[in-house]
């Protein structure tokens, strides 16, 4: 926002890459087509196993979002304490905020589609196995981060406190990943790389496309939210500047 003309730069946040939504929509449609029309029925679980493709892809997006949020928050804490790094610190803070939001969005999807898959297979919606508990607690932690970040607005202390909470969430993501190996549980170990896996080539193709399309979708949402946060920051700066000028005139 330039000091001379506060009005000049202010435009509502628009998607930066106009073709992006079309590519993302096409990728998601292809993935859905593969899930319902190409991937074969699983031999022990039946049709309900088709939840797997978007459930696991959403879990990948959530975990990447949370790790990214923790790393960007750590960078923000590090950079905000250094002279001349204010602009980069602001960008990392916005990136952390956007990644945290997308992590919580996909975490919600995982925590809702998971029980809907578990009920017909495990005969219960929820078990208190370590992976599920850790996933839920990490979701709570990042919801806390978002609440605090939203209340902090321009307050630097509040932003730093929120960033600290996000940094704590980073190791939790690693524990979610290794929970089944370390402490056991009912979760299938299909994507662990220790034998087994998806045995049919059409299942492998569908899974790969689902992962790629959901991650592309998540990346486009992060981009959208970052632009939104940048615009909000600029608007708040402009308000402060305008109030100063009005006070000076009167």
């Amino acid at each position, binding site marked *: 926002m330039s000091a001379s003309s506060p009005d000049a730069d202010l435009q*509502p946040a628009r998607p930066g890459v106009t073709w992006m939504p079309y590519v993302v929509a096409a990728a998601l449609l292809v993935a859905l087509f593969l899930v319902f029309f190409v991937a074969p029925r699983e031999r022990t679980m039946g049709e309900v196993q088709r939840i797997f493709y978007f459930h696991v892809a959403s879990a990948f997006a959530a975990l990447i979002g949370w790790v990214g949020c923790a790393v960007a928050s750590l960078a923000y804490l590090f950079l905000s304490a250094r002279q001349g790094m204010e602009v980069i610190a602001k960008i990392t803070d916005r990136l952390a905020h956007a990644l945290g939001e997308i992590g919580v969005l996909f975490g919600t999807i995982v925590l809702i589609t998971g029980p809907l898959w578990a009920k017909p297979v495990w005969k219960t919606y929820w078990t208190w196995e370590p992976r599920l508990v850790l996933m839920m607690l990490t979701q709570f932690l990042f919801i806390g981060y978002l609440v605090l970040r939203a209340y902090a607005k321009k307050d630097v202390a509040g932003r730093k406190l929120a960033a600290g909470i996000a940094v704590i969430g980073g190791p939790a993501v690693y524990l979610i990943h290794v929970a089944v190996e370390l402490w056991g549980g009912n979760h299938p170990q299909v994507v662990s790389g220790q034998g087994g896996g998806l045995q049919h080539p059409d299942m492998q193709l569908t899974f790969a496309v689902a992962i790629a399309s959901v991650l592309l979708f998540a990346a486009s949402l992060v981009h959208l939210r970052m632009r939104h946060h940048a615009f909000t920051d600029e608007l708040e700066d402009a308000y402060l500047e305008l109030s100063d000028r009005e006070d000076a005139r009167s």
Partner: protein
Amino acid sequence: MKPSSPLGARFRTAVLTLSLAVVATLGSVSRADVPVREEPQRPSAFGATEDAPLPTVAPGDLQGLLRNCDAERERAVAAQKLCEQDKTGVDFLGAAYAALWIILMAFFALVAIRQRRLSAELATLRERLARLGER
């Protein structure tokens, strides 16, 4: 007495709300009857329901014919079981994908509302700028 900062009050409210949510969740779970579960399935591989062709039986090989007969019966039983599972499984599959799209639509609605609020704030800002210019 020193007044508390707005951030401090809001932070305390947020922490209190989250703590209450966690306590309520844990409390409801500790009271809930834990259902008796069947032997949990923990597959290490997902395979398709494609059956390999049965071995060809030489004419007069009665043992071979019986083996194929048993294999066919086992497959029929497995297929029947899978069909039974699918009766409820399909409903849960539909519910999961419906939930996925509802969550995404809710997120987009929230973003659209915030965007509209920002646009309204921008209009107010422009109005104030114009008034400042007129003075």
